[in-house]
Structure formats: C-alpha cells, structure tokens
C-alpha cells in the first residue's frame, strides 16, 4: 500500500490529495478480491483433477477444454440452487455464519507479501494479526453449527472448535521460532531475514534444522486449522454427514467452501512467507522486471504448497478424534516448545555450521524419543482369526 502510494503520488500533483491515497487503498483490495478467489476457483478444479488422477480417473474434463470452465459451471449451479434454511434454525445466525467464514480468510491475505515491498498492508505485527484473524474463522464454523439446530452440525462445530484450539498452540509456537530468528513480526521483515547467509536459497528458514521442524509443525497446524484432510473431522462425511455445513445449500454452502479454501491458500501463503523465503528467488533484483519475477516465485511456491496439500488430501486417511487430539498435545506441542529453545541455541552459537549439526542432532533425537513414546501407547496389532 505504501509502495503504491509513493509510486503514484507524484503523478497526481495538483489533483485532490485523497485521490492517490484512495487508489493506493483500492488496488490491493481489488487484487485480493479478484486474484485470490480466482486462484480458489482453479484450485478446486486442479484439486478435483489431481484427486481424479490419483484415483486412476480423469476428473472433470467436460466443461470447456480440460474442464477449464468447470469452476464457472459449479458457481452457476450453486447460485441457482434453492437456499434452504431449516425451520427451527436461528435464521439470523444461520445467515451470518457463511459471511463470517469468508471475512477472516480474505483478511489473512492483507499481510502476505508477494514482491519486495509489495504487501497489501505492512503491519509491524503481521504474524500476530494473522493468528488473531485465522482463529476468528472458528467462530463462523461454530455459529453455523449452532444455528442449524442439527445435532450433526453441532457435533461438527464442537469438533472444529476443539481442533482449531488444539492446533493453534503448536502452530503459534512454531511461528514464535521464526519470529525469534527474524527478530520481527512483520512479514516483510521475516522474508528479508531469510536472505542472510550470502546464498539466496540457503537462507530460507526451511533449510535450517529448527526451520524445517517449524515448517512441518506449521504446515500440519495450517492444514488442521483450515480443516483439510487428514484433519477434516469437523466435516467428516462418513461420521457426521457434512458437519457444520450440513444444513447449508446453494450459495451459502459455496461461501463456506470459499472461506475454507481461501484460508488454506492464505495459510499456504503465510507458510511460504515464513519458511520458504516468500518471494525470494533468483533474479528478483533485476531492475524493472525484478518485482514481477519475485511475484512469480511467490506464486510458484504458493502453487507448490497447494499441490502438496492436494497430494496429501489424496493420500492420507482422516485421523480419528482421539488421535487428532493426542497428536496435537503429545507430539506437536513438545516438539514446538523444544524448537523454540533450539532457536535460542542457534542464535547464540557463533559457528553456524556447528550450530546446524548440533540443532539437527537435538531435534532428531527428540523426534525419535517422541516417536518411541507415542508408539508405546499404540494399541497392539490386531490379529484376524479367519483372514489367513
């Protein structure tokens, strides 16, 4: 926003003073409202096609060549569908929930930088803002589940709350490590902090032992927070129909879907920003086109994260509720707390190569121990009497 303002302020000499400011505000908003939903639309298409391929079939390929008009057809269908509200539903809350589901997801994009200096809002508490906002989405889920007056919806909503609250903790702690290393809460500063170390790529946090652990923790947390497979128990269709959006149809349902996907994309964007070096990549300092190259790198990484998400969704089974909770509190939480200590160690060790080895050893050992402990709690292998 500031960058745009500085860029265009000069062009408007003699015009009313508010004009450049208004434009500088409008452009990022239009960008967020225009580009990310488009990414969402095509994410659904790519997801369906990729899941199809994983399952040895084609996926949508009938509407337009390669099915590229499928999102349009889906949208049209959902728009024209009847909007059904249960008779006993709390009508106002029922109406409000899908709207609220979308808002935090859109707001999340405000702090995701896509090129040097180009972030819709350069908040100096960017990461904090992101967590505050993303947790608000659980409010929408609970509102939807409560207002529907349907026990499955309510069950789904309860699960959603429990899950988001549990996974929020290791996720925030994983982010704390990054904030400690970068020394700032601003997303732009975090990206800049990853250029350290001469080599562009080696500076990315994901290539430090603690950064890798943080990346995995954060990615798992992000997946759980946006309720995507394998953490989609709030809408586990085989158990509780569709969870909190059981009673939603037509475009309200589409809004829930939109909110969920936008949250997933935004979380992927934040993951890229915090661990994968954001817009960093070869060629971003070339004059004039460097900004575009940076944006290209950012969206490439974003796409890879989304594809990883889809791949995981196509592979892993849904975890059980007790496993879900146990995993968050017994594995992720200790790991993330240890990770914070390790970052401190990293910070105070002068020799970075030695620090790399030491921190890797500590974290590796911790992982093995945690694995042993959690495996000890497993129910022993079941033997089937008649299946050979």
């Amino acid at each position, binding site marked *: 926003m500031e960058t745009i303002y500085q860029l265009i302020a000069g062009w408007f000499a003699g015009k009313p003073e508010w004009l450049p400011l208004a434009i500088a505000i409008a452009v990022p908003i239009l960008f967020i409202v225009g580009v990310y939903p488009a990414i969402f639309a095509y994410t659904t298409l790519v997801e369906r096609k990729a899941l199809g391929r*994983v399952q040895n079939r084609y996926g949508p390929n009938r509407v337009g060549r390669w099915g590229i008009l499928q999102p349009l057809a889906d949208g049209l269908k959902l728009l024209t569908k009847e909007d059904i509200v249960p008779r006993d539903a709390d009508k106002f809350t029922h109406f409000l929930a899908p709207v609220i589901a979308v808002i935090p997801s859109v707001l999340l994009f405000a702090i995701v930088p896509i090129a040097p200096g180009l972030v819709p809002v350069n908040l100096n508490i960017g990461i904090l803002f992101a967590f505050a906002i993303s947790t608000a989405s659980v409010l929408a889920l609970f509102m939807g589940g409560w207002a529907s007056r349907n026990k499955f919806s309510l069950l789904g909503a309860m699960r959603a709350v429990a899950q988001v609250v549990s996974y929020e903790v290791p996720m925030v702690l994983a982010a704390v490590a990054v904030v400690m290393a970068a020394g700032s809460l601003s997303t732009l500063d975090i990206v800049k902090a990853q250029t350290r170390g001469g080599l562009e790529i080696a500076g990315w946090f994901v290539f430090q032992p603690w950064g890798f652990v943080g990346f995995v923790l954060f990615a798992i947390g992000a997946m759980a927070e946006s309720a995507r497979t394998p953490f989609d128990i709030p809408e586990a269709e085989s158990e509780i129909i569709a969870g909190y959006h059981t009673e939603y149809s037509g475009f309200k349902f589409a809004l829930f879907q939109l909110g969920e996907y936008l949250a997933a994309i935004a979380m992927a964007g934040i993951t890229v920003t915090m661990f994968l070096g954001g817009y960093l990549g070869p060629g971003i300092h070339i004059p004039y086109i460097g900004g575009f190259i940076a944006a290209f790198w950012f969206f490439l990484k974003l796409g890879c994260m989304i594809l990883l998400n889809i*791949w995981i969704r196509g592979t892993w089974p849904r975890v059980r509720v007790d496993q879900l909770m146990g995993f968050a509190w017994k594995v992720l939480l200790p790991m993330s707390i240890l990770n914070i200590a390790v970052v401190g160690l990293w910070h105070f060790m002068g020799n970075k190569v030695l620090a790399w080895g030491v921190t890797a050893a500590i974290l590796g050992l911790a992982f093995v121990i945690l694995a042993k402990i959690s495996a000890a709690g497993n129910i022993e292998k079941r033997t089937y009497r008649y299946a050979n």
Partner: protein
Amino acid sequence: MGFLGKGLFQGMAVTARNFVGTYFDRGTREKLVTYQYPEEKPPLPENSRSFPFLVYDGTPDAMRCVACKICETECPPQCIYIVMDRDEKGKPQQRPKVFDIDISVCMQCQICVEVCPFEAIKMDNDYEKSQYGRFDDLIEHLPDLLKSNEYYNEIKPTEAKAVDAKLKAEAEKKAKKGTSKPAAAAPAKPAAPAPAPKPATAPAGKITIPEDAPFTAEQRAWLAGFLSAGGVATSGTGVSPVAVAETTGETPVPLPEATPAAEAPAGGWPWHDPGLGMSQRMDLVKAAPLADKLMAAMAQTDCHACGYDCRGYADAIAAGSETDLSLCLPGEAETAKKLEELMKEAGKL
C-alpha cells in the same frame, strides 16, 4: 527401518505413482481405467444382452418370424404385441403386420428367444435405448426390431454360427424329403415349445413318496393311499385329468365315468396344454370325436398361422372344408403327420 510416519510417505509414493501413471497409460487402462462413455465404449462380452430383435435373411421382407405368437404368449411381463399380416382376401400371410415390444416393460429375460421355434427372435446387445418420451417412444415397432442376420453374426458370432448351421442342416433335410411345407417353417423343433416341468419324483402313474422323506412306515402307507385316492377323485370329477397327468407324469387310465371329451364344453379342453406330449394328448382323446382328436394333435398355441384358431382348424378339417393338413406351423411335421394319420384312421383320406 521404521520411523514414525513412514507409512505416510509410502502412501504418498503410491498416490504419486498412480498420478504420474495416468499420464503414461496410453490406452492400456491399467492406470487410467475410465471409458469416456459417449466417445469410447467398452467392448461388450458376446453373451451380453439387452432387448430382443427380429432376425431377417437378406432383405427385411424375408423375416424369419411367422407371427406364431408363441413368444407373445410366453413373455412373462406380456410386453409383446403381434398382429398377423393378411392379404386382401383375409388369408394369413405367416408374417407379422404389427410386432411391438414395449421395452419399458421387457425384463430382458430372453424367454421369447428360448421359445421361438423359428430362430426368428434374438437378444440384441444395443443398450442405448434412451428416449425422450415415457410411453410411445419406448415401444419398438417392427421396423425398429428388424435386423439382419449379418448383424446377428456380428454381435454374437458363436451363437449365430450355431444357429446358421442348424438352419442349413434343416433346410437340406427338408430339400431331400421334398415335403411341400411352407418355406418359412424350416426348423423341426418339438411340437411343445415350452415344455412344462415334469415332476421328477413320479414314475409310472403312481405317486411315490421319496425314500428319504421323513415318514414312518405307517405314515407312508397312509400318505400313499391318500395321494392316490386324491388322484382318482380329481380325475373322477371329470374336471382335470391333466392335473393328474401333470402330477403323475403319465396319463391315467381314463375311468369309464371320466370321459371328458364327451361332455367337456368346447373351448374348455383340458388337454389344451402344449406341455403334454403328442402321445399323451392322443391317449386323452381316445374316446372323443374326430374333431377333438384333431384338435388335440394341434400345437394349440392359437397362433392363427393356419387362418383359424386351433379349434376352428380342427373343426374345418373334420368338416372337410379345409383339406390342407400342413398349416399348423408351430406343430410342424409332427402335427401334420398326426393329422394325416387321424384322417386316414377316420377313413376320410
């Protein structure tokens, strides 16, 4: 080496293999199994079947169907409707004028195919029969149903070859004999196209109780007495010797007071049952007038191939107004022979 989460990565490898594999499938359908239906169709197994069609040789005019209506009678859901073609004088043409099959009712059971003595109706394997209308559009008429023998050979080569060979053998046999039978009535199938199931446990006119039935000797004796008494009582009423014949599998000796032929009303002929063999039917009418005997010799499908119903044909022959004895198509050679025999016996030939 096992570590926490190893299975997750193995799973990811499997899905990745399948994902990439779909792009290198090249039509083997190992990794990409979908048939994109309207453009691609999976090959049908030879024995697949959808709805019946009528076979013709050469031109549609040379259809094999003689409108005998056996299939119409036998079709379990009664979805076939046949009207025989007649010329201006009203003489039957041995071909259907109307042949409709309501495919919304047809249950694809193939029974019409099994009972047709003329190899005229066969099961198609064309399953794309969707229509826009619910009623009339789903009725297939004669032109829709007629398909060539070549088509039959194409969709079901093995079966069609066997049929062709059989028809050829019959044609040769007929040519050798030089009989004057109508050309269309080639095959020599048994007169009873749909044999009624014969009870398996009843040899030699007596109801026997199976050896392994759980009865004591006393009960056995009583049961045997009861059953045979029942049989006698049934036929004694003169209502249904056929019922007895059916249960025993053999014709009971007609009791003196049970001469159904003498008093049974016309049309209520108890042997009107193509499930009985010719000799059984003849036994039943031993004491009956000539017209009844003739009637018993008919195939009794009331197919009108002869231009009468079965009763009418028999009466006409007996009265001398009909001299052609080979008009009963479903009865084929057996009926013709028997008619001749009976007429000779009666001294009318």
